[in-house]
């Protein structure tokens, strides 16, 4: 279980970082989204991994940590809003610069 979650986080973050380092705005948006997913799962697992347990003290013998769920919820909401904003910004950037390169132009064009 721990290994599986750790692998998932690792793959998500690695793909996210890889995509962030691409020079096109679309892959950067995707990369940041994946990075956000990886971080959210990481944050979630910080309360300890437990299966089939509710997050209410007294309702089960070994309740799972409710605080990390609240933290992840906040992080998801903020991350979701930021992705939407970033998509709009990327579209505007493409509209104004006629290129989806993050610097507004390709390396070949510049030289």
């Amino acid at each position, binding site marked *: 279980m721990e290994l599986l979650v750790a692998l998932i986080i690792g793959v998500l973050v690695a793909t996210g970082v890889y995509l*962030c380092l691409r020079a096109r*705005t679309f892959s*950067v948006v995707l990369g*940041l989204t994946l*990075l*956000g997913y990886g*971080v*959210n799962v*990481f*944050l979630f697992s*910080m*309360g300890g991994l437990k299966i089939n347990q509710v997050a209410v003290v007294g309702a089960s013998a070994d309740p799972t940590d409710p*605080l*990390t769920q609240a*933290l992840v919820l*906040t*992080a998801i909401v*903020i991350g979701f*809003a*930021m992705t939407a*904003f*970033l998509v709009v*910004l*990327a579209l*505007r*950037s493409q509209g*104004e*610069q006629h290129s989806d390169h*993050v*610097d*507004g132009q390709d390396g070949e064009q510049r030289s």
Partner: protein
Amino acid sequence: MTHWIIAPILIPALAGLLLLLEVRERQQLRRVTGLLSCVALIPVALVLWQQAAQGDVGVYQLGNWQAPFGIVLVLDQLSAMMLLLTAVLALPALLYGCAGDDRRGPNFHSLFQFQLMGINGAFLTGDLFNLFVFFEVLLIASYGLALHGRGTERVKAGLHYVVLNLAGSALFLIALGLIYGTTGTLNMADFAVKAQALEGSDQILLTVAVLLLWVVFGLKAALFPLYFWLPAAYANATAPVAALFAIMTKVGIYAILRMQALAFSDGPLAGLGADLLWWLALVTLALAAIGALAAQRLGGLVAYLVVMSVGTLVAALSLGDPKVVGPALYYLIHSTLICAALFLLCDLLRRSRGDSDDRLESGPPLAHGNWLGAAFFAAAVAVVGLPPLSGFVGKVALLQAVPSAPYWVLLLLAGLAGLVGLSRAGSTLFWRVHGDVVSKKLGRRRVIPMLALLLASPLLTVAAEPLLQLCGGVAEQLADQTIYIRAVLGGAS
């Protein structure tokens, strides 16, 4: 009286929401709402300063939840001083914006208020996750403000700024996850207590978390190698926005100072990452000096001066010596206000130069060259740190407090580089002129806020002695964290 603590967050939040509801065409109404909020923040900050100056640490428990479990707002002298600085900075910046820059986008005023709410919240909060949330609030507002107005350059700089800060937020969350996973708390005071007791692998994980926190705060403060976004973003932002952004890097510095004083002044984690911060800050200082010399535009030059002040401050603060904190706070107040004044002045010059914009090249003569030149001269003297203005007092106090050869050499050389850059900029802008005056009226509504900010420098100089003592008092309180921890964890207020 206890409810005063939350007022600096509530006032801009309510004003921002009200501004969203108001009719877009009624610009005057929106201006009045925004200005009223900014004016109200000053007396509130003064009242809070009065409370904090008595030496107690005020704690406001949101929803009356007990401290380590609920979220608290904490008011000590450092927070109160930063709140006052924000309020003093925000009013002239918004007044300048009301002279016409606010028309260039529909939601300038509400974004401005939300930005203030985020900044004030970050200064007040006593909870690490809450700090993240307020960072996000101020960042989201700043994304909107950085893109306020039009221009391809602005969109490009804005995109870089947003992407970098989103990556920074992800790192912040990882750090918070590690802190919660190892210590089981996110309350700053509780964290400070529990961090001392960690051993073994938990301590290693916590070290990783803290170093990640330094990366995030370094990104906010614009520390090498994470400052490259700043010159483009600040130089391309609209003037009142750039002026307000002058406090944004200081939020990062505040966060470093707060965490360092609270949890890393003694115990097993004492001085964690301080060496790293020291050297990175010195490199920042050196590179900012080179950037200031190489700047092609006045806006870029001022942005590098902001980076220079960050290097100066972080290097001094990384020593963790309470004697340094006082002068550093004085220098922080000075550099924030003067850099903001320079951003406004830069915009005034840009307006008088027509197509030449703020590029450092021969352009049309200025309509009010003498007045603008005098203001530029005063601002340059202040920001570089020549006598008799406040930069000199601040730098002398810092140099006295930091007995280190590399710091002295770099700070003085950086000051020299700034001086050369500003002299070159001034002589180009005011003397290398050709052609006719591009007649544009300056407008009293733009000049007065700029002068008001500039006036801060002589005032800071005249009141240097009491102010330095005040800052010393703040540093003393910061050095003794038992009061803070007892106030937060000691139960009901």
